């Protein structure tokens, strides 16, 4: 299962034609205590780079951009009651939403783990 990263500090983990998206550990650390995650509607179609949600902490509000194009399959409803999961387990239980990829080749434009590590320094 390949994990790719964006310059907006999102990760996308691909399984078949479904990508699971969340924010990186670096992102959650920068944001501090996350208080709210606004997620897209299931069934919506998003294009790569579209605003797909908002993550809010006590000190900042940041847009979440769709790292890849496709249809929103599922969102992590558990975040509504437990937004802190995005702090404690950003790459696991703290995932945001799943997209059915419409163009898997878009993944080639994203960073792999080592490139992302270099990116965040």
């Amino acid at each position, binding site marked *: 299962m390949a994990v790719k990263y964006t310059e907006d500090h999102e990760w996308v983990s691909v399984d078949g034609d479904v990508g699971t998206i969340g924010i990186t550990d670096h992102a959650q650390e920068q944001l501090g*205590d996350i*208080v*709210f995650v*606004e997620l897209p509607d299931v069934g919506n179609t998003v294009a790569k780079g579209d605003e797909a949600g*908002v993550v*809010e*902490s*006590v*000190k*900042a*509000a940041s*847009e979440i951009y769709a790292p890849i194009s496709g249809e929103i399959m599922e969102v992590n409803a558990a975040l509504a009651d437990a*937004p*802190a999961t995005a702090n404690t387990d950003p790459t696991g239980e703290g995932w945001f939403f799943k997209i059915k990829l419409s163009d898997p080749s878009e993944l080639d434009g994203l960073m792999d783990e080592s490139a992302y590590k270099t990116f965040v320094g």
Partner: protein
Amino acid sequence: MTETTVTVDQLHDQGAFIGRHIGPSADETAAMLKALGHPSLDALSDEALPSAIQLDQALTLDAPKGEAETLAELAEIAAQNKVATSLIGMGYYGTVTPAVIKRNVLENPAWYTAYTPYQAEISQGRLEALINFQTMVSDLTGMDIANASLLDEATAAAEAMTLGRKLAKNKGGIFFVSERVHPQTIDVLRTRAEPIGIEILVGDEFAGLPSDAFGFLLQYPSTRGSVNDYREIAERAQANGAVVVVAADLLALTLLTPPGEWGADIVVGTTQRFGVPMGFGGPHAAYFATRDAHKRNIPGRIVGVSVDAAGRPAYRLTLQTREQHIRREKATSNICTAQVLLAVIASMYAVYHGPEGLTRIATRVNRLTAILAEGLRRLGYKLDSDAFFDTVTVNAPDYAATVWEAARVEGLNLRYLEGAVGVSLDETSTRQTVERLWSCFWQGSDAEFTFDEIEASLGETLPSDLRRRSDFMTHPVFHLYRSETEMLRYLRRLADKDIALDRSMIPLGSCTMKLNATTEMAAVTWPEFADIHPFAPSDQTQGYLRLIGELERMLAAATGYAAVSLQPNSGAQGEYAGLLVIRAYHQARGESHRDVCLIPSSAHGTNPASAAMAGMKVVVVGCDDKGNVDVDDLRAKAEAHSENLAALMITYPSTHGVFEVQVREICQIVHDHGGQVYTDGANLNALVGLCSPCEFGSDVSHMNLHKTFCIPHGGGGPGVGPIGVAEHLVPFLPGHGELDGGESAIGPVASAPYGSAGILAISWAYIRMMGAEGLKKATQMAILNANYMAKRLSAHYPVLYTGPDGLVAHECIIDLRPIKDVSGVSVDDVAKRLMDYGFHAPTMSFPVAGTLMIEPTESESQVEIDRFCDAMIAIREEIRAVETGDMELDSSALRHAPHTSDDLLADTWDRPYSRRQAAFPLPGMEASKYWPPVSRIDNVYGDRNVICTCPPIEAYQDAAE
């Protein structure tokens, strides 16, 4: 031997106020100058200010006047206003400010000199008043959540429009505005809609609804008075994916089914008639209420309930991350200032009267109106509608002008409409008002009737299917304070919880918390200024027009601009108005493609938010490591966008508190590429009398009268943000339908023609009493105080950003980041610990995260500045104990700050510092100690559990157990 005789005139010191406004005495001034190594104030300001921009002559203002003479002149101006009975309505009504509220809130520095409650622990009093306000609004409108006020009804409607566009499923480009909405609201909506590509469609909602509208605005009751059943309209609009916005009258909602019960998505309006004087248009608190689902998109400030370190309920501003200072050009609103003082008054009016009192007032107004209407019918008139609350519009094509004039002669102001007149009754109306009105309408009719006879025959006065059935304001706070004694003590109890300027200095950088002198404040509540309707005939408002004209000229003289508009109600609204002026200028020259706005990265977040609202594209210009505009980057970006360059927004002195040497060159670069220069006047207090923005090349500025020109902050509003413009931009100043019939180049940005006219006498009095010499000296003293403070603190904390000569402007930034790296002590820890020392923290993390920005202003004496520096230095020593390992941070007084008396009197005390060290860390504090009412408030808890109405009393009991 000759004796020097001193004349009576010489003994009368007309400039005495200058020495009252300026804090340091002559000896203190000399001592501070000596500490800085400068021989004189002039020598200091010569060195601090780049010589290229210094004025070589004094401001052209009258000589300073004494306080008594100034009051006498104001009384003479006031006498030129004529207080009539204004029954014009349109969102402005006569009201009685309960005397206990007038004296103990409106005229009380404990309330009016406080700052926005960002430091929640020392703001619990006004935060409670504001959550009362939110609860009152939520209850009356039938909505889930309300904010802590907006600037006025029209801009609240505009905020609802932009939020509606974001929320609506219908992606059409039209915002439908009912023709029954107040005309000034429609005008402001037009101004706000056009730059962001929204089309305003004004029409009759009962004649059909457009399918491609994302939102609808309805007025309830309508501007002509009718009470309409909007249930079906709301349903149809929503079925079409549109958002329903309702502008509603809160007093009417005590009797009418609230919009929240018939489907409104957003409800807005004014709370003026809840005890806030009309003041020729403002300031008044508008409200904004919506459904819980939209709470994270509400514009403005919202008070929420959280808990403190001991688990006690505590109030704080919540959901602030959406504010423009974080989202910048992505923000959908630039709203910053609220109308806290006025919201507090409105909320206290509700506390004072309670739900039954408000209902009684509303019922009385409604019955009077019903009696008036029946009499008019018997006189043969046709009314617009038979369902009304407090306003009737009388159709009289042949008599409208005659009746209107007869009423004017009788001292009754009516609303003049095409072939009709409107009459709005209010709390101050009486049986005599109604009888006098009948006499004005009596055009030889032989109908005979009396008030009592009509009243006896009165049936239901409101449509029964629109009568309110639900309870409101059931919370105990609206029931506990009926006697004046209880009310007085409630107000005192709340005020005592807060730190305002009447207690200690508030050294907030960029906020200029200077003296709001008592003489400056005096005229605000005089009836000749307070009780004037914004649309009163001009023969009644000559005093106001004179005051406004004089103040415009004074402000123009102080800034060098050719003309000034006093309309904008806040700094951010001034920014927006100024950018619209620039936009209109480019359009008039056939260059409407110019839409790029350059903004330095160090700018306040309102700048990019305002630019986005004005339809401009923001291009960020970098800053060098000193916080100055990177001139090479500016040149490159101006060149790259030369074709489309509209404006540069620059703050001067910079947000980092430095006089940038190259400002003249910066302005020139922008002009060379066809752009205009907007100077943010937030830091004007460092300039007045020494240099003028217009002279160094700026084309437009806003001036925060609530900073530089002494209007008090009111605990978070009112603000007044007039704009000054250079000669070539004068034709593009904002207009107002009541003044020019809508013929101006840009429409109004606020409900009232002169914005918050009711408080302009404050700035007028300040300038009159200071004169040119006083204003210049104030600026020099602000620079002296800031530099003295920077010098004292620099031995203990790193001071960021100084000019080439090592001087700061009127504020300084101390850098806590290196300290945090070593000790872990954060800006928050220092800010909260300052509360234990009795001080309000400086501005936190603006313009640089992890720093404190301190602005003492000219009004603080050396004694007070030293007291503050002593506190900061003592805190530095506490930090050092953490650095050296003598004190563990998590157990330190820094981390546990602030300390309540309750914490300190606990049976057990197991902390590694003494109770005395916690509460009285410096000698001499025992006699006059400020006790924080709560300990540190949990921000994360508050933002995760958003509660924005009064918590039940049990919450306090639970915490106590």
